[in-house]
């Protein structure tokens, strides 16, 4: 799930549950998630094979 898809679903859910105050907070969480997913420690199948840092 992309962050945009996740955020749209989360906002719709918050509205449905009667919690519109959550929407700006979810937008902040989405920014933090973007940063996390962009971090250089993440492994991907089309990159190098993961290695143990202790060895």
């Amino acid at each position, binding site marked *: *799930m992309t962050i945009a898809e*996740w955020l749209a679903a*989360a906002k719709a*859910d*918050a509205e449905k549950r009667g*919690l519109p*105050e*959550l929407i700006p*907070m*979810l937008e902040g*969480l989405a920014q*933090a*998630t973007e*940063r*996390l*997913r962009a*971090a250089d*420690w*993440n492994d991907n199948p089309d990159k190098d094979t993961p290695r143990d*840092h202790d060895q």
Partner: protein
Amino acid sequence: MITISDVTARLARGEVTSQKLTEQCLAKIQDLNPKLNAFITVTGDEALAQARQADKEIADGRRIGPLHGIPISLKDLIDQKGIATTAASLVRKDHMATDDAVVTQRLREAGAVFVGKTNLHEFAFGTTSEDSGFGPVRNPHDPSRSPGGSSGGSAAAIASGMSLGSVGTDTGGSIRIPAAACGIVGLKPEWGHISASGVVPLSRQLDHVGPLAASVADAWLLYNAMQPNSEQIGDALDAMPLKGMRLGKLSGYFFDRLDADVERSVLETIERLQKRGAKVVDVSVPHAGDMAAIYLHLVFGDAAEYHGRTLVTRPQDYTPPVRLRLEMAGYVLAEDYIRALRGKDLIAREVDRALDGVDALVLPALAIPAPPFGAVTMPVKGGPDAVRTLMLRCSQPFNLSGHPAISLPCGRSRDGLPIGLQLVGHKGRTPALVQAALAVEAVLAS
């Protein structure tokens, strides 16, 4: 502030009694708690009974332990048998602890007298102690300001003489932040060194139990007594010699977004340490900028798990701001939680590397002085930033990494508000960290 170290010697010499000390603390609570709201429960009768028993034992020449007859408090998310553990939430208003937490039991065995349970940010899920089901805690230095949090009641109690020591918890800075904001000492031990059994969790992988105290020596005394008997070292440590002490000044992220007075006080302190013989080198944590995102996903994931059922069955019993944060926590995806777990491991390795070749890392404990209640942002170098982000900025890295860290007072802002310096030590070497802090404290007192 009265220190435990001083009082212990006076108790042994018969110059003061535990009953007198306990009565003094209870009188301060009666006088100041209506204004500061530092305590949720006061256990006056039980405390006085404990104190009289301690006085009898001392008179008979029996010393139970290093805290014999010393009045202390417990953050109200730590179980004390027969007393409610509310976690500052109406969700737990009917709770009654059936047993002591491990840490309470150890302090009881060390002879401590328990005067009450201190107020906190509800479920420790905040840094200001203003969102509590029992009303906000106020800063003794300026009641219009936060005492920091989440262990705000513990810090306010010590700073105002309502107890001589306290036990808090620290998931992102909740011992060190209020210690800095109230001008006292707070020690976050290495992760896992003090049992969290019988303590209401926020995030089990980031929660640390530790002492808040009036001095570094007192923090050590409490910490040592909280450990299993087999791991206790001694009631007192010698200061590390300043000449030859090697300190790593954390550069970049850790000094980028500071209040001007905090930056000045911390840099002046480092300069004083250098003049007294400490060697200071610049070190870095390369992924420091990612720490807030890592922390957020871990704490949210863990809090969502613990609070999942009660958020559905009794949402009205949470304070609205804490309820909203917990509701948001439920949206964290498993894949992002896993990414954060991997980031946490990386941060721990990077902090280890920063410590390579130095005795301790040095940085601010809190980027800003105590904020006014209701403040959403505070001015810092580079422009205003969110209060919560600023308050966690310098402390949360060491919850992720698990390294021991201590906050101690290092001056005042132009408004007279306390400022905290933080030292971070090697894993497995908490005594050496405390010895370094003793040396720094002595320089600051000179």
